[in-house]
């Protein structure tokens, strides 16, 4: 499950960051992003990036977690780069598919925050 969470988080991070770019937003929606959408997408991607790093290091330890994080970002990046020219309309679907895994990872991290108060 941790693996799926890592990949989903990396995928969502890569997907939002790519769609925040004008060229790729055009591919998916046909128009450039509205300034507010763009900001929202960037902020989401910018938050998902460290979240995925945190999740990976939490689930696999600092050392292996860093390796897993790099590997997952690479895999997610390749998937997104393939998707954009060939199946751009499927981007929202892919994001949807990534939600449960990402949510489980985030819930884990939330639990971590509430369970262990800062010592």
């Amino acid at each position, binding site marked *: 499950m941790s*693996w799926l969470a890592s990949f989903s988080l990396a995928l969502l991070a*890569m997907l939002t960051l*790519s769609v925040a*770019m004008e*060229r*790729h937003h*055009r*591919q*998916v929606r*046909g128009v450039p992003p509205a300034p507010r959408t763009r900001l929202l997408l960037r902020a989401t991607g910018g938050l998902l990036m460290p979240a995925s790093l945190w999740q990976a290091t939490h689930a696999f*330890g600092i*050392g*292996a977690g860093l*390796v*897993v994080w*790099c*590997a*997952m*970002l*690479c*895999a997610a*990046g*390749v998937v*997104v*780069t*393939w998707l*954009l*020219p*060939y*199946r*751009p*309309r499927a981007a929202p679907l892919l994001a949807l598919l990534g939600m449960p895994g990402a949510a489980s990872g985030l819930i884990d991290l939330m639990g971590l925050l509430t369970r262990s108060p800062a010592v």
Partner: protein
Amino acid sequence: MSEETNSPQRGFKGGFRQSMSWLHTWAGLVLSVVLYFMFVTGSVGYFNSEVDRWMRPELAGSGGGAVTQQQMAERALARLQATAPDAKEWSIGLPSGRKNPNLSIYVQPLPGADGKEAEGREELLDPATGQALAQVRKTGGGSALYSMHWALHYMPYEVAMYIVGIATMFMLVSIVTGVVVHKKIFADFFTFRPAKGQRSWLDAHNVASVMALPFFLMITYSGLVFYTYEYMPSVRAALYGVGEDAGKRFDHEADGERYAEPEAAGVKAPLASLTPMLRQTELLWGVDSVEYISVQKPGGANARVRIERRQVERISRSSDALVFNGATGERIALPDERTFAAKTFSNVMLALHEGHFAAPVLRWLYFASGLLGAAMIATGMVLWTAKRRQRLGKNGVADSGLRFVERLNVGTIVGLPIGVAAYFWANRLIPAAFEGRDNWEMHALFITWALCFVHASLRPAPRAWVEQLALAALLYALLPQLNALTTDIHLGRTLPAGDWVLAGFDLTMLALALCFAWALRKAMSKRRRAQQPQAVCLPTPRRGGERLA
């Protein structure tokens, strides 16, 4: 890589980035064949034990079952005592995890009269009886493919080491200069524009390189770390001098006495039982935690038994070990392993490179990253020719250099996978009892690969691509069928049994066949378009991706 602006008036005015672009292009091209070979065989190496198992179908059913590690160790020891009572060193590999799935023994004989090291001998044993598994076919397996990525083949180890080192250095230079010359590393991060000739190759090259950049930097740099002392001998020579003694002194200081060899005693003594020693390790490390036992100077009063713990899943190459007096069975207390920053760093680097710590998902990602590296080199090679073709235009005549590289590309990029497929085919087709069959499997790889170069040099390049891609797709697609005809570890059995190691091999071959079939389709349509020049002007079918222009 940037679009080269090589127009004469820019010439040397391009400055830093321009000269880096030149360096990137040529450093990448010159040793691309060696580098591609290293990335392909090295990637296979992440599954060396799994490939080993597929290539020794006779082993499929001989798992340890209910036999304990102590029983296996004693049985292996009995076999060693019976077959090689006098030896320099014995080792026993105990089944433990993916790295070491079989019970094996290894004998390092005493040096010959001339003082030269004799060649060692390995044997696989049946854990239940301790007898040699004689009917297992001799094969280099996946491990031979794996070791080729640093030791190459058909040449002395030292020569290979330097070729590989120079190639790795070129790779590192190509990676760093590649980052420098990539003008739009962030703007083009996710950009792939298909069906645009040179543009598409550049996009593919950029994406493959950038996505796995941390992996490429790590794998290339750590590859050099493996041979630090060999590649930079003067550092050690300055402090310790040269010669064998200096090397020994250095090792001694670096590792303490942990690996020091015992002096020959001259007095004979029987070896103490291994079982009590293994009980001690079990208390410390838990059940089934031993990977490797070595006995130095067996049969002498100074014999030393070293029991190594199975590498736990952490990113370091150092391992735990207990050392015992072989005659008395008493544990020898050794000073703790010395740790210092440089050693820790190198341990972590080597462990990252080898990826022994990687659980299955991460292992697949390692494998995929390695293949992405092969793809990076391959796209770079094609880009070199595509760029020059584009510059020539429709009616230009290619010079001999361009034609040479075009053929070299086909023979390398598709020829090597065909050779690897031939290696697997040979494993199933050469009779199991054939003398020297393991060597012939290797010959099959290299003869086939050489034939691919010959074929590529005789055909027009676009045609050579199509024909070799077709052959590769066919060879990989039929491999599971061949496996089903010659063994009983085919998908029809391994899938229902849930044996994912063996089934995974066959399924991976089918997946590779699909990749080659896809590439074949692309190459065929490209060739058709090239034959009908008017078709080039037709607009490509509208798809999402085309709107971005």
